[in-house]
């Protein structure tokens, strides 16, 4: 097991490091990339296991179908590229060849969101969580930091037999988990307890949500609960509803469109089981833009200050009278009807 990181580091490095560990532990693990092996860090696996590494060049569709063929013949392929190509460019290949066949393929989607920065809108994928969440049989993981990402990748080998989409980021981001967590669990971790408002965040927005909670506590005397939703699908609804039942209002934060992603996953659960206001912070009906990663995040308000602003608006609209939650069947797949 690798050592936990303490200094800021990109989650994509966890993909590369964990992939090597998986290669050592399991002979059937193979990796594919599409000429971005240095960026996605799959190069580490490629150097260590050249026979089990296939660089497909800038041909992501072909890469995903090759992953399908490899998995259908008993291998466990990890296929990586930028999120925009790993989901959008090759959607049909992932859909039929991988998801429909329920094959054990893991997609490592790096450079998710606008924080990849300078390359701009063409490369800033802000709808992949929505695409992959809608795809039947596909599970979606968005780890919060290096340490959780490492755990997610190592566990991905045995977590499920069905396909997984894992989203990583380009920039170095602060560490949220002091250790490499023992497990990814059901994918929803309460990182800070609070009674006034629930923050649901994933990926790069988790550390910002913790910072926002700090600000609210010191400036407004508001106790925000912070939940890291690393597994966006299937959503562990029980943890989500428990928090909303306690606080009565929520704010979601993601580096992604507010449509179809984390926001809608939380809202779907809330609407069915505990209808309270849930406000979304994310990308609105707009594409990304060129700039440094941090400047892009600031441009679109994807910051701790952005979460604080959204929380203050939300608190004004928080219902005064609360009612008990309508608990569903627990960790059902998002979009599944509640148990009757």
């Amino acid at each position: 097991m690798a050592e936990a990181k303490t200094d800021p580091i990109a989650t994509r490095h966890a993909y590369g490091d964990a992939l090597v560990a998986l290669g050592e532990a399991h002979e059937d693990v193979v990796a594919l990339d599409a000429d971005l092996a240095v960026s996605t860090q799959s190069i580490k696996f490629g150097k260590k296991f050249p026979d089990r590494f296939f660089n497909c060049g800038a041909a992501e569709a072909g890469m995903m179908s090759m992953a399908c063929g490899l998995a259908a013949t008993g291998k466990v392929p990890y296929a990586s590229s930028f999120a925009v190509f790993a989901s959008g460019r090759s959607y049909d290949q992932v859909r039929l060849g991988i998801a429909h066949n329920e094959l054990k393929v893991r997609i490592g989607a790096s450079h998710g969101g606008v924080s990849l920065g300078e390359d701009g809108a063409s490369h800033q994928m802000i709808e992949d969580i929505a695409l992959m969440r809608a795809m039947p049989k596909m599970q979606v993981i968005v780890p919060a930091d290096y340490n959780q990402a490492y755990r997610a990748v190592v566990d991905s080998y045995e977590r499920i037999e069905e396909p997984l989409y894992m989203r990583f980021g380009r920039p170095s981001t602060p560490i949220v988990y002091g250790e490499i967590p023992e497990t990814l669990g059901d994918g929803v971790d309460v990182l800070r307890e609070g009674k006034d408002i629930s923050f649901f965040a994933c990926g790069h927005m988790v550390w910002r949500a913790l910072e926002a909670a700090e600000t609210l506590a010191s400036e407004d005397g508001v106790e925000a609960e912070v939940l890291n939703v690393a597994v966006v699908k299937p959503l562990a609804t029980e943890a989500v509803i428990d928090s909303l039942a306690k606080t009565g209002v929520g704010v979601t934060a993601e580096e992604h469109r507010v449509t179809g992603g984390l926001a809608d996953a939380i809202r779907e659960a809330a609407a069915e089981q505990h209808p309270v206001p849930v406000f979304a912070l994310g990308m609105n009906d707009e594409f990304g833009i060129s700039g440094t990663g941090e400047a892009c995040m600031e441009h679109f308000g994807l910051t701790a200050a952005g979460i604080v602003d959204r929380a203050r608006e939300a608190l004004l609209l928080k219902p005064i009278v609360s009612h008990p939650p309508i608990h569903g069947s627990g960790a059902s797949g998002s979009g599944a009807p509640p148990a009757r």
Partner: protein
Amino acid sequence: MHLKPVPDPEASALAAQEPSIAELERYATILRINCVRMLAVAKSGHLDSSLSAADIVAALYYRELRHDPTKPDWPQRDRFVLCKGHAAPIQYAALAEHGYFPRQDLMGLRKIGSHLQGHPDMNRTPGVEVSTGSLGQGLSMCVGICLALRLDGLQDTAQVFGLLSDGDCQEGETWEGAAAAAHFEVPNLTAIVDYNHLQTDGTTEEVQDTGDVRAKFEAFGWDSIEIDGHDMEAIVEALQRSRTLRKPAALVCQTKKGRGVSFMEDRFGFHGKPPSQEQAEEALEELEAKLAEQDEALAAGGGGE
């Protein structure tokens, strides 16, 4: 060119028999009859696309493929991928005739409760290696299978045969797969193109000319030949030759869509359209007459090569 020896893995029961060319032609007729019957009942599907591939599929399943219906996941088996998944009926007919599932299942094609989906489904139908139906994906899937076989030390044992349509050759991803096969130097891949020149909206020349497909594969670094896709002797010879090559092999088969049914053969307008009751009867009459003729010739001792 260096040739690799043809391996002789543990033979399955079926591999023991080796049908003659005349017998293979008869089997192709049987597969065609099955397709017409299936489509007449299903009232949906791609009949003419299945018929153009009948001779190729018969050559594969009855002679060239090393497979064992009693052990569909025998690791040393050859793989067949129907890249042109819309021709599923022809593969289903071959699988049923070989006992992968009961023949009567064929009549459930495209119906709720049947395992025979509109396009091949690896998780439902025994003998289907991988699900297909979205054109362009199959060849890259075949490359992935070849790479896995290489890691398992089986690349000189198991051959992977992909059957593509001209529509597949219009899809860009097919050429990603072609490039990958050459780059990774897979020696056990045979891409068979059922080049019937007809697609949904017209002839391939009118819709989007696929041009010299043989030359295209050659330019991608493949061994590439063109044959008559209804000449059983040529098909068998080309399939066997492809197995001995140390590079991926393309067999561009010039075929006629709807082959074997006169009113449909090489005619535009039947793609994805099931036969009417009258059309099915007419087609069956012609094919059954052909079968009787073939039976007679074989009985008279014309089956030798």
